[in-house]
Structure formats: C-alpha cells, structure tokens
C-alpha cells in the first residue's frame, strides 16, 4: 500500500461530495419551484372565486344561478382562508367549477355579454380560469419532477431532502365552461 491509494480515495470522496451537493441544490430549487407554483395557484384560485362572486352579485345572472355561484364561490373562499385541508379546498374549488358550468350555458352567456359591464366580467372569469389551469399544470409538473428526484436511492440514503414534507399534486376539476372558451389556450 502506498500513498497514492489515499489520494485516489480522497478524490473519489471529493467527487462524491460534489455530486451530493449538486443534487441537494437541485432538490432545493425544486422545492422552491413548488412553493412558488402553489402560491401562484392559490392567487389564481382566489382571483377566480372573487370574479365568480362579483358576477353572482352583479344582478346579471338569473336569481337561481346567482345563488348557486355565490354559494360555491363563498365556500371556495372560506376553504382558502380557513383551516380546511388541501383536499377540502380542492373539493370546494371543484364545486365552484361545476356551479359555473351549470349556470353559464350559451344563452346565459349571451345575455350577460349584452348587459353593461357583463362582457368585462366574463372575460375576467375566463382569463382567471385559464390561469388556474396553467398554474395547476405547472405545479403538478414540478411535484412530479421533485417526487422523481426524491425517490432516487442516493437522495433517500443521504436524507438530502431533510425534513421537508413530500410534495402533493393538486387534483381538482378546473375545466372552463365550454361556452366561455374562445380566449383560452387552444386544446387541439
């Protein structure tokens, strides 16, 4: 045995340390990306429920539809501020999607569009619904990338993720009422 064995071992250890540090850096960046994406989704969902609430209280919808949308929007807002779990919130947002879909059929939309201020509200609603879709898609993509990395053997063995909780994908129905589509991202 001679000294160069020691050098070799040191080099290997150094390279391995570098690899671990780089992987930890990647993981860190992914967690950051998930945080930003969740914040963005949160903001877009809030924007959507506010516009829905505004639409419901504007007097432009028929009374029955107005109550449906107002209640669903209110429930979604409460789930956002309160102690609701992620699952409960997703459920409330899905209910809002369904309420909007049920209320805003082609005829209703045509009528609201003609009323003063109606077109602006509908456009704002369509825009926020489109951004909800985009944000959720980007968030879930980040969650997928992060989960994939955290499942790697080295990452698990060296606890590179520390104590940060496993990221969760957000599953909810965020479809846009078909009659509102037109400004949305083309889906063909």
């Amino acid at each position, binding site marked *: 045995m001679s000294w160069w064995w020691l050098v070799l071992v040191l080099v290997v250890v150094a390279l391995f340390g*570098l690899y671990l*540090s*780089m*992987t*930890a*850096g*990647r993981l*860190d*960046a*992914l*967690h*950051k*990306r998930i945080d*930003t*994406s969740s*914040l*963005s989704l949160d903001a*877009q969902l809030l924007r959507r429920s506010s516009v829905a609430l505004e639409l419901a209280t504007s007097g432009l919808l028929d009374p029955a539809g107005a109550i449906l949308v107002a209640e669903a929007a209110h429930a979604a807002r409460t789930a956002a501020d309160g102690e609701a779990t992620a699952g409960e919130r997703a459920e409330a947002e899905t209910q809002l999607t369904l309420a909007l879909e049920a209320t805003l059929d082609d005829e209703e939309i045509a009528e609201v569009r003609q009323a003063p201020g109606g077109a602006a509200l509908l456009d704002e609603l369509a*825009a926020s619904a*489109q*951004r909800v879709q*985009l*944000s959720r*898609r*980007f968030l*879930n*993509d*980040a969650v*997928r*990338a992060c989960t*994939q*990395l955290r499942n790697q053997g080295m990452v698990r063995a060296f606890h590179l993720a520390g104590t940060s909780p496993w990221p969760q994908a957000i599953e909810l129905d965020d479809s846009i009422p078909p009659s509102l589509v037109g*400004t*949305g*991202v*083309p*889906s*063909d």
Partner: protein
Amino acid sequence: MSMRIGLVCPYSWDVPGGVRSHVSDLALTLRERGHSVDVLAPVEEDFVLPGWVTDGGRPVAVPYNGSVARLSFGVKATRRVRAWIREGDFDVVHIHEPLAPSLSLLTCWVARGPLIATWHSSHDRSRMLTAGYYIAQTAMEKLRGSIAVSQEARRTLVGHVGGDAVLIPNGVRVKDFQPENHDRQRRRELLFLGRIQEPRKGLSVLLEAMPAILDQVPDLRVVVAGPGDSEEIRKNIPENVDRALTFYGAVSDEHKQELLREAQVYVAPHTGGESFGIVLVESMAAGACVVASDIPAFRHVLEDGKAGRLFSSKDPSALAEAVLSVLADDAARRALVSRGHSRADQYDWDSVVDDVLAVYESVHMPGEKVTEDLRGQALGRFAARPAFIRGRRSGGQGDGE
C-alpha cells in the same frame, strides 16, 4: 401590467429559420403590447442588429438534430449569458428550444427564477438520450412552465424527457403577409423554401417529380430560395428541369414574404422532422396555394387537406400529381387558398400572444426577478465573479430558502 421579458434564441440570428422567426415575431408582438423585450441570440460579427437584440457571441456550425445548426457555446458564451441575465433585470425569461446545446441550455443552467420554455422540434428517443439525461433533467427542473408548439413537440417532451407542457401553436404575423395579388395575377410558379442540401426539406423529391410536371406544363417556373450549393444540385438534373429552376440562395424575411405573395403554388416536400410547419401558415396568409407532404404536422396545419393539397411523403409521382391537379383546376385552387387564409388567421400572433402572456403571468410572482444561479453547480461556482463569491461566504449555503 408591463413586463420586462428576456427571450433566448439558440440559433444564429442572421440565418433565417423557424425558431428564429418565431422569437422575432413574438418579440415584435410583445413590444407592440407595450412590454419591454430583449432577445439574446448568436450573431455573426458583421450583422447589424435591431436595438432589442443582444449579441450572444459568434455561432459555430455544428451538426444538430439531423441538420447543421449555428450555435453558440463555451466559456465566452456562458459569460455573455450571465451578463445578460444580470443586467437584464427580467421579470420572465423565455427560453426557446431549452435543450439545444447553445445559449438556451446555458441560460437554463445559469439563471433562476421565472423561467419559461418553448419546445419547437420533435426528437426521436435515441437523440434525447445522447443529449445527456442528467444535463437535460437538471435544466428541465428549473423551468417553471413549458409550452409546446405542436402535439408532436409535446409528445417528445412528455414521452422522452418527462414533463408536461401546454399547447400554444406557432404564430404568424398575418398582416406582414397580406397578399396584394389575387390568385389570377400571380405568376405560374412553384416555390420551394428551405436549405437545399438538407434531405429532410425534400428538394430532391421535388426535383425527381419535375420531369413529369414539365411534361404537362412545360412553361412552369420553379423558384428555389434557401441557402446551399446550387451548382452541386444543378450537376445531376436533366436539362429541361435545370432551365425551369431559379436559385435565389438565402433570402431575407422581406424577400421571402414577397416570393410567397407572387407564387401561385408553394411546395413543401419535407420528409419528416418538422413538428409544426410555420412556412405553410405563412404561405396561406400570403395567399399561395399549399401543396405539402402528408407528415403529421402538415396534415394538422392543412386540416387534413382542406386548406391545402397533401401528397404521400417521399413519393415524387404523388407530388407531381398533386401539383398538376392544383395547377389545372383554378376553382379548386382558389377554394384551397381561401380556406387557407381563414386557417392562417387562427395562427395570428395577435391572438396567440395572449396565451403566451397568460403563461408568463401564471408563473411570475409579484416583484420577482430572474437572477443568476450559482447554487448546486460546480461550473457555476467556478465561473462566478470573485465579488459574488465573497458575498456568498457570509450568506452561507442555504441562503434564504
């Protein structure tokens, strides 16, 4: 809300091409909307740039994705990207073709913050693997949102790289192509656009079809516009075909628009590797009748043959038949042209840009900026400026997470 937007184009700014025109049209349209835009692209030394393009260094011609691309990379290019990010103060940086081994991939490495990518081309799996899985993965992880310009490009991303993308088709600035000439005033002429030696662009298929076409229409002219050695091609073709051909070499965007406004028929004999077919949309916007091979991207753009005539790919006799049929039947040709025109309107940048802006807004947090990334990267640490390293020492490793 007006944003500061940085766009990164991996291919040489002075060579016409699909990605390059996409970036330039997107930049122009965003500027018209009042945003402040700066483009980073490789540029030849003597090329005069508009004020909103930043020189990313001299490109080198290398084989990439089945053809020769002009790319910038290396230490010097990395330094330029860093400086651009540092001085740009961007709200969003939008990287085109993020895995292209050029300024795009470099930007993925050295920047952090609201990064968006657009995937243009479709690759096959083997090429994605040789691109280096680790590098690709690390770069991908930093992209906050991905856009694919076509279903094929999206499939490449989802299937081979892993990751999701929203579909936003390529835009065309329809107003730049508005035809002045109606079909009957146009020259009886076939137009081919693209690098002439590039097998995927399919000039050889067109040339093989020419004798049969000239048999029926002896006075037909064929205009070939695109870079490449025309002498080499002229050597191996029959004399009557040679007489019908005019080679223009590489043409400017304005010249291309003019050619598309003048020609009666635009031929796209591509044999594959195209994921969208922007030239087809431009031809339709300019009022030329499109005859194209039936590769998936073209089928989609031409609405399965309603907005242009399709022929079976790589088949010269099918091409000849398709060209002859649209030349012979004026009514059918004008019907294709008019349908093509309304199809082109669906791809107008003026509406496409709204979707792009929606993506920007959905990944950008108020007050956030794109900054240099020096974490977790050996290369980044070594390339960092000394002042920055001194600053980091006091900050420690996990700064502000």
